[in-house]
């Protein structure tokens, strides 16, 4: 177990800042997900922690010790790559034992450690297999075992399940979470999959253009995204442009009263927190598309001004494209200039 501290971590490639003064504290045994779109700098941060990239500025500390200039082979970190990066000329046992041999452990000790870690990742008895004889999921387990066997202080996972199919990905991420909790190892996990981050992480760090947008627990991040970007990136968020005058929304469909200065803003609400019912009169939205996901129905709705929003519809109602509906959003958030307004809307009801 270990504590990881990033202070003002910066990385530039050819004059372009891809990581901008990132500050982050990861506590003992915590699993933190770095989440962001492609090019947000999440893998670069992980590679700097692993020692594969030299930071342009800032410092990396593990248990208070500055490791910024320490090469990867002497860092107390273990990295699992997206491509598995197994050595095809070695069998499974040799892949896992490689690091232990370099540490001059006895043969008996190596055997016992490798067998224990193979058992841990559910591959007991696979030691003599060639890596190309394994499935993608098994290969990734070997890669995880290869890192874990060296008992690193910090485990770094760089989109480890990106090349696997959905079912396998879900199963493996649960297994990784179990192993991480059992060993209590401090872990940093890079992903661009929000589901993966929400399912795995103790905390999520959302990155955009090399800078941290928000760091919080998954539930807090989902319920109160601090910026418009986070709101749109984590799950689906309906964002409806409006303006406020004398503390009231000028939008007729959403009569909100908020203590806020006059000016433009965006009303935000989740599809699952949006009530929809067939309109008694003219209604204020038109059903554009109905999609049945099995677990729920998603309705794509067009508001009067053409803004398209999503809502979950009751399965008991026969929804049809072109149908007029009334929309009642709940748990409404308000954004101005891309930032969440701390003021809570007093009411969030659709206009009658």
């Amino acid at each position, binding site marked *: 177990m270990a504590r990881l501290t990033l202070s003002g971590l910066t990385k530039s490639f050819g004059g372009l800042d891809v990581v901008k003064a990132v500050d982050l504290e990861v506590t003992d045994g915590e699993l933190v997900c770095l989440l962001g779109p492609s090019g947000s700098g999440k893998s670069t941060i992980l590679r700097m922690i692993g020692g594969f990239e030299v930071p342009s500025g800032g410092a990396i500390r593990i248990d208070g010790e500055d490791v910024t200039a320490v090469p990867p*082979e002497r860092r107390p970190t273990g*990295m699992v790559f997206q491509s598995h990066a197994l050595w*095809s*000329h*070695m069998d499974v046992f040799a892949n896992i034992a*490689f*690091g232990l041999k*370099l*540490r001059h452990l006895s043969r008996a000790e190596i055997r016992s450690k490798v067998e224990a870690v193979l058992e841990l990742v559910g591959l007991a008895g696979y030691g003599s297999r060639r890596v190309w004889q394994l499935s993608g999921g098994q290969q990734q387990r070997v890669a995880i075992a*290869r890192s874990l066997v060296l008992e690193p202080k910090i485990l770094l996972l760089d989109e480890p399940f990106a090349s696997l199919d959905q079912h396998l990905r879900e199963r493996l991420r649960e297994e990784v979470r179990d192993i991480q909790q059992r060993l209590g190892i401090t872990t940093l996990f890079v992903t661009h999959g929000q589901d993966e981050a929400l399912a795995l992480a103790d905390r999520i760090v959302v990155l955009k253009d090399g800078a941290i947008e928000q760091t919080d627990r998954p539930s807090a991040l989902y319920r109160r995204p601090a910026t418009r970007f986070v709101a749109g990136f984590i799950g689906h968020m309906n964002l409806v442009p409006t303006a406020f005058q004398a503390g009231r929304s000028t939008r007729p469909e959403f009569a909100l009263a908020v203590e806020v200065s006059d000016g433009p803003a965006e009303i935000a609400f989740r599809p699952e927190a949006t009530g929809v019912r067939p309109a008694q009169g003219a209604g204020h939205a038109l059903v554009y598309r109905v999609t049945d996901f099995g677990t729920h129905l998603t309705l794509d709705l067009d508001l009067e001004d053409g803004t398209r929003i999503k809502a979950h519809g009751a399965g008991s109602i026969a929804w049809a494209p072109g149908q007029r509906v009334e929309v009642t959003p709940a748990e409404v958030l308000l954004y101005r200039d891309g930032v969440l307004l701390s003021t809570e809307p007093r009411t969030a009801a659709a206009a009658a």
Partner: protein
Amino acid sequence: MTDAVTTAPVRMSIQRRGLTGLLLVLFPVGLLGWLILYPILNALVTTLTLRTDQGLVLSLDSYASFFSDPYSLNNLALTFWTTAVCAVLLLVICLPIALYLRFSRGPLSAYVQALAIFPLFVPSVILAYALIRTLGPNGLVDILLNAAGLPKLPSPYLTPWGPVIGLVWDNIPLTVLMLTAGLGQVSDNAVEAARDAGARPRHLLLHIILPQIINALLVALAFAVLGIFSSFTLPYVLGPASPEMMGPYMQRTFADLMQPRMAITQAVITFAICAVFGAFYVRSVIRSREVR
């Protein structure tokens, strides 16, 4: 009944496609037979038979003559020595260059690559005369040493080291290109994973990189060895008159001594030795495909 009706046209279509494929490869295969297989068979028949009053009889006398002649054996030994020394030098010179080209990130690598490939564009005979002008008696090196007031160095020109220098220089581009291509199969992540496990540069080379490029290494060396063993121009211009490498020896036996049967025997022996290296190459290719 229905099955028979529906599968018959499919079978005919497959047969027609197979025939088209065969026709497509017929010309290159025919050319291969005419230009390569026929001369080999012809050479074997010529050297293994003797025309007597009783007609054509099987005879190993030309091979017996070659292997009992100390001069021929010395020439063969020199050819082996030159090939082995060149192969070792090529490995020692080209592997570091290829490693640098594969793993360096700076702009300098483009210049190094251009420099390593440069000999590819220099004809062997030009190279030979350039080496004579540089390393030969009263060449550039001698002039510079003399200007500095230093004694002359023994020149490699007309010694076994003359062809070695020329052949190594000549084979650097192909060997570097093939090794760089082989190193391309070693992913950055594979190297980084090894460093992550604690591997230092020496461990990386011995345990991760070399085992993964062993087939590329064998292929590169097989190609170099095949070319060097049967080389002619550089040994002819730079090498000693006696003993001499098999290439110039064959030419002299054929044109100066006018012994075509003996020259063909030397060619068959050279070919047989090269075929062994060729078999190494084929085995390496098959093994790398099996792993893939």
